[in-house]
């Protein structure tokens, strides 16, 4: 555990520093609150704004870690995340919403109350995995981030499958990508910047392509519901 020993006193993940926990836990908790709004809000703009809030919190996590551990490239992560996740991606999403003139998402597959129950169950599951996976590498401070990351991933997957609206599914993918970046920040924070740039570029491109496809789906089928597209049967 050499690299953790190199970060005396305030080692964020392995040393379970009080400082890191103090910063990361509130930010991670707020990310979970925004996750709920992203997945459950029927109004697409609210989902998009919640996503901006969540991405800003993620940038906050990056900045906090950068200020606490000797990994200067975390500042670059924070800047690139701010540009792509707080500015570019939300701009693309909001522009598509405006262009298509849609206000609310298509009727979701799962009704509201069962959907809330599913959200909370997935949150519990994410944290259960985060805290109980028999991985010696994961220390308690680290596990909070890992649990949050898993929860964001689970909720993202749930949103992408449980919601029928193409734009909502795209926003849920953005949300899932935030989970991935939180994971990278906690597990693979020493990777070269090229890796981070590659992963971010892929994420932005995936979202741009999905939004473009959403526009085509709306034009061809007259609706954004991907569940109405049923010309293919296995």
């Amino acid at each position, binding site marked *: 555990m050499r690299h953790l020993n190199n970060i005396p006193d305030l080692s964020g993940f392995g040393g379970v520093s009080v400082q890191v926990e103090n910063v990361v836990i509130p930010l991670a908790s707020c990310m979970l609150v925004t996750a709920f709004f992203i997945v459950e809000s029927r109004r697409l703009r609210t989902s998009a704004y919640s996503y901006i809030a969540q991405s800003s919190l993620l940038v906050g996590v990056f900045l906090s870690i950068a200020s606490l551990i000797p990994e200067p490239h975390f500042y670059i992560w924070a800047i690139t995340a701010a540009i792509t996740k707080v500015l570019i991606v939300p701009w693309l999403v909001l522009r598509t919403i405006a262009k298509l003139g849609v206000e609310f998402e298509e009727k979701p597959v799962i009704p509201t109350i069962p959907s809330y129950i599913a959200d909370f169950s997935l949150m519990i599951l994410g944290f259960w995995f985060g805290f109980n996976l028999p991985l010696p590498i994961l220390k308690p401070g680290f596990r909070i981030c890992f649990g949050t990351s898993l929860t964001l991933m689970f909720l993202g997957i749930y949103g992408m499958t449980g919601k029928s609206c193409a734009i909502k599914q795209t926003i849920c993918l953005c949300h899932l990508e935030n989970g991935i970046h939180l994971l990278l920040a906690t597990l693979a924070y020493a990777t070269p910047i090229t890796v981070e740039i590659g992963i971010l570029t892929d994420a932005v491109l995936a979202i741009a392509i999905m939004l473009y*496809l959403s526009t085509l789906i709306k034009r061809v089928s007259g609706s954004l519901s991907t569940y109405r597209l049923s010309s293919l049967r296995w």
Partner: protein
Amino acid sequence: MIVEYATIIIVPLLMAITSIISYLVGYGRLLKIILAIVYGFMLGWSILLAFLSCLGITLSAFGMEFRIDALSSIFILTSMIIAISCLIYSYHYMEYYVSKHGLRLKGLGLYYSLLTITILTVYLMAISNNAFILWVMVEATTLTTAFLVGYGGYEGALEASWKYLLLCVVGLTTALYGTSLIYSYIFDITGNPYFGILFTDIARHVKIIEPTTLTLASIMILMGYGVKAGLAPLHWWLPDAYSEAPSPISALLSSIITGCGAYAILRWLIVLSPALNWVMRAILMVIGFTSIFLGFISMILQDDLKRILAYSSIGNMGIISLASAYPPIGFALAIMHLFNHSILKASAFLLVGDLECRYGRRSGLRGVISDAPILGFSLLVGILALEGTPPFSAFYSIFGPLTAMKNPSIMAIYLIGVLIGFIAITHRFIETAWGSRMNLPTNENYPRSMLIIPIILILITLILGLYPNPLLKMCGGGFTG
């Protein structure tokens, strides 16, 4: 030195420039000539790389970030054979396709641009020795091909494209989690941030990874790339994407795009194998058998020839997974089957594309031999070759895993699976080729030259079946490289 830097800088740059030119120049004779020259050069280059790997030479550059070993070179060779086949086939087929779907002929520049980017991403994936860059490139192949799957712009194509993109992007996330876990563990122990990134370094440090972490990470990697490879039960996107994409893209998807998933799994398994325990082997076997039976049995329920071939791909990916459970010989057989299946499945999709051009449909066809003897006969031979009939090279890779299996029950179950696949696919294609002749209007303008490419692909596997030594040598080097 020159070969290394040319492989890693000049060749990708050439493809990137070609992609931009394709988009800017637009579709026309000039573009066709440029593309044929560039793809021809790429094929020649991949043959050179394969030759070097046969001599046991491994190329690397940029501090081992890029490395071309036997596994890389065989995958690059496969990709380039398929790429040039799809390109030349597309010249005629896509003109038919755009007129059928009311698209602009000039807009085909975008199609060729995306095709070239896809080949570029596959190439970069194959030469990457960096586990994270490999992931980025596999994801990139999904993004570029999603456009190509939905190129027709009609409802079915868009649905298939959406499903493909959604499931692959989500699935690949799991692989990133697994990669990060392994990276993190090695970094944690060694303190060097590079030891967990490069495959060559991971292979050196794999034994220090704690078994539970390693098993969990391996499962995540298998699941993540398994979605891309179309392994059951993570295959839902595959039949739709294959059947709704233009035929050359179906050929590309069935061979090198799903191949990317299989390549990534094999690359990881080869690196992790010294430390993997029986759990991973059991998972590979379960996924392998599930894919074989689910894929091959589902073929019986299909009528659309492209969907039949799609389900056959799931079964064949199962064979690759199952073979991988028996290292080290299993790895060589898996690599070999990846090559054989790619070539033969691409050929089968292109032949179905021929049927589509000639009859305007790909289901309910009968008696093709009496109407178009060369097409019907090629179709039949191609399918028999695909199912491992000797003397084609797929025979070695389909029946080879039996030599590695020691348990007679497993051998029997595997043979039953292969037999179901053989019956299911040949039954439908024999009916298509030999059944009572149908009275369908045919497109007499359909160019017979479109048959040349799939026939050449079948002949490649015939030659490699009769003289298997070069292929066996390369595949044997694949898991030691």
